[in-house]
């Protein structure tokens, strides 16, 4: 518990760091909410109009005063209003987040469902032809950028079969599950492919390490069959690296997959942030980056807690 408290206590520090970085960075970029809204027509504004707009967007003060105001708002649970959406930032984020979360979960499920058995299989068939096959596929999988894969999938579907992935307006899971899955499956496969390859590789090497551990020998000396040894004794011990990898990947996926969202036309967090940066929607950029950083840290914390559940040797706090 103590560890949890101390860990949570570092959250604000990191979040402050993240927010200051974003806050300053986004304001260093030429152009502001006004030019984003008006484009070249902004040149037609009189100075008075410009000032009025600046006041409207809240960008008429030095950045540290703006930051202070923003932090004050944050303390009241108010992330500000998105100027492009005309809605509270949190509402905008929470509208996009279910898709990102679902996509990340699907990708992880695919990665684990494919990667773990493949890794275990390869490890138990070490140095055989089948092991080599798995390793080659995993290596290629890990080397395929997801945007290349996405384009290849779309190209293959359209050139080879004359069909294209379901796009069109996004349907949330609870409204139209079938359509939702048909929209998310290919993106999830795209994201899950390299992820699965990494899971395969790491679970294979972890299994190989574990299979040479003393307690595996002990289990065999007790007369445990190969299957028992692998699934009951070795696998739980090989999970830690897999959990670490999956946690990190999942944490990043929660931040949105900018390019894949772009290619598959999905309204996820990644594209929202990209748009928000381009639209100079300061409040939205700040809020969403903070949100992502927070999620990332929570996922990391969960990963650490998972270690404890997986391995009683690990006591938290010894870093």
């Amino acid at each position: 518990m103590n560890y949890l408290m101390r860990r949570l206590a570092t959250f604000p520090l990191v979040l402050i760091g993240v927010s200051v970085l974003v806050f300053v960075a986004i304001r260093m970029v030429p152009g502001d909410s006004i030019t984003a809204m008006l484009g070249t027509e902004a040149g037609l504004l009189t100075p008075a109009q410009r000032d009025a707009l600046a006041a409207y967007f809240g960008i008429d003060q030095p950045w540290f005063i703006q930051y202070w105001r923003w932090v004050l708002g944050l303390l009241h649970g108010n992330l500000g209003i998105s100027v492009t959406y005309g809605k509270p930032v949190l509402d905008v984020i929470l509208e996009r987040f279910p898709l990102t979360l679902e996509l990340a979960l699907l990708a992880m499920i695919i990665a684990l469902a494919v990667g773990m058995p493949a890794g275990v299989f390869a490890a138990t068939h070490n140095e055989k032809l089948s092991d080599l096959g798995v390793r080659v596929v995993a290596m290629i999988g890990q080397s395929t950028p997801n945007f290349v894969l996405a384009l290849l999938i779309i190209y293959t579907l359209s050139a080879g079969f004359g069909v294209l992935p379901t796009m069109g307006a996004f349907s949330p899971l609870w409204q139209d599950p079938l359509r939702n899955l048909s929209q998310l499956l290919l993106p999830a496969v795209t994201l899950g492919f390299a992820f699965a390859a990494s899971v395969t590789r790491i679970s294979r090497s972890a299994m190989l390490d574990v299979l040479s551990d003393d307690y595996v020998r002990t289990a065999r000396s007790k007369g445990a069959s190969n299957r028992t040894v692998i699934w009951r004794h070795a696998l739980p011990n090989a999970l830690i690296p897999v959990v670490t990898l999956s946690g990190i990947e999942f944490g990043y996926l929660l931040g949105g997959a900018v390019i894949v969202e772009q290619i598959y036309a999905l309204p996820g967090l990644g594209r929202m942030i990209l748009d928000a940066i381009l639209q100079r929607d300061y409040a939205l950029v700040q809020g969403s980056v903070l949100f992502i950083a927070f999620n990332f840290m929570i996922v990391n914390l969960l990963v650490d807690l998972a270690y404890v559940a997986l391995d009683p040797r690990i006591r938290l706090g010894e870093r």
Partner: protein
Amino acid sequence: MMPLLSITDLRVGFGRNPEANEVVRGVGFDLAEGETLAIVGESGSGKSVTALSINRLVDYGGGRITGGSIKLRRADNSVFDLLTATEPQLTKIRGAEIGMIFQEPMTSLNPVLTIGTQIEESFRLHRGLTGRQATAAAKDALDRVRIPDAARRLEYTPNQLSGGMLQRVMIAMALACNPRLLIADEPTTALDVTVQAQIMALLAELKRETGMSMIFITHDIGLVAGIADKIMVMQGGEAVEQGELNQILDHPQHPYTQHLLHAVPHFASGRATRSDGRREQDKGTEPALKVDGLVVRFPVKSGFFGRASGAVHAVDGVDFDLMPGETLAIVGESGSGKSTTARAILGLVRSTRGTFSAGARKAAAEQSALPVQMVFQNPYASLNPRLSIASILAEPVIATGGRVNAQTRTKMAALLKRVGLPESSLERYPHEFSGGQRQRLCIARALMLNPSVVVLDEAVSALDVSVQARVLELLVELQREFGLAYLFISHDMAVVERIAHRIAVIYAGQIVEIGDATSVLSEPKHSYTKKLIAAVPTIDRRREHFELDTRQVPSLVRPLGFEPEPARWDEFGPDHRARVEA
């Protein structure tokens, strides 16, 4: 009738071409029901591989049995050929007929499963027990190895138990289904000497109870004197000699057996101490090292802000002095604070209190900036693998502001020669040397600065017994030659007996007894010293019965501000005193 186990001309090889890489070359023996065979040998002798071949676990370690036969007589007197058996057949034999325990109890138990689950597994596999029945059987198994509070301990995971306890759990597990053969592969090597004594006692007792046969593998011929019926000595993959216990111990035929019995340190209760360089009282010489009231404490932090809530009293008021040319051995078990004492003297850990002074050497011109040097336990970790030997030896010189010139080079070459390594070693890298050679390199490095005191922290513990003997010889020679004072930290009483002039016994951070080596070893006064000495296995104590003792080492964590009572001493002679016990 056929013996329980019969092995003939066993050959085991490794790698892609096992015939060419044989590790076991034609070993054979018979083992009768209820008999104990000890297989003795040093690392690389093939003793463990022989053992692992019996239940065919060697297959999983990359080995292949290339020849010979292994036959087991089963409970129904049918003969079972272990070499031709299929894997499913073997899983029925393992655990049920042949149990096995291993060297490292800490790593040999699955860290993520409770010990209860792991013991129950044996019952599930061979007895078909499940649920409450299995749990009850597991509790009985723990009771059988004398683990107190067994029902509660079933819920523990291995990390919550000490090494000695874990080895008992291992034994409980191996014996769960009453195998008729137990293979024990160096089961006590990783344990402290008093714990080792208890495990040995337990094994002897269980053997009596169950009438099982046992194969006991060890590098310490002294250890098996208490338990074995027969001994087989292995060297280089071959059994060089085998026979009855007494015959081997008293009339060894093979030179290697003789070497193991005589050249290698065995504990002799103070009869084998050094006769040279004894301390003479009131000679007025300055001590080479004087330690006064050394205290080392590590804060224990807890709570949200990490405030110190107590302290580990690792070393709690240690004083001693060390004369030039003298060896003071500090003996104690793991966690007693002996290594911390050494590290504090070298400044590697910060001492909380206390003073040390290192005396001047005889000639001022030769005086070193750093009179105390150290040799570490692990010869594989104490040399930087990326530096050549020349760079390693030059480092102390560079560190003290010296330059690497012709004179330094001459000195390096001379020291290498002195520790028994060729001069050409200078251009080589640590991985090209064996453990013993590396320890020699470490000694040479320590001598580069002409120290007056060398701290040897378990300096020979990691070495094979015969290598150990030779390094000890070298140390004694060097001591005479350079007038070095040694602070020799060790847990091994046999080694200490060979090298120490004086002995300090340390327990829970305090010296409980100190004095002349012969008197301390032959007439221990403090109860802990007595217990320690009683636990040391010797060739003389054959088939001895050990007392079981389940006391735990006291916690060294004390509340903030805790100060131990000042020590009171009983004097037992001119140079022998022991702490008064409460």
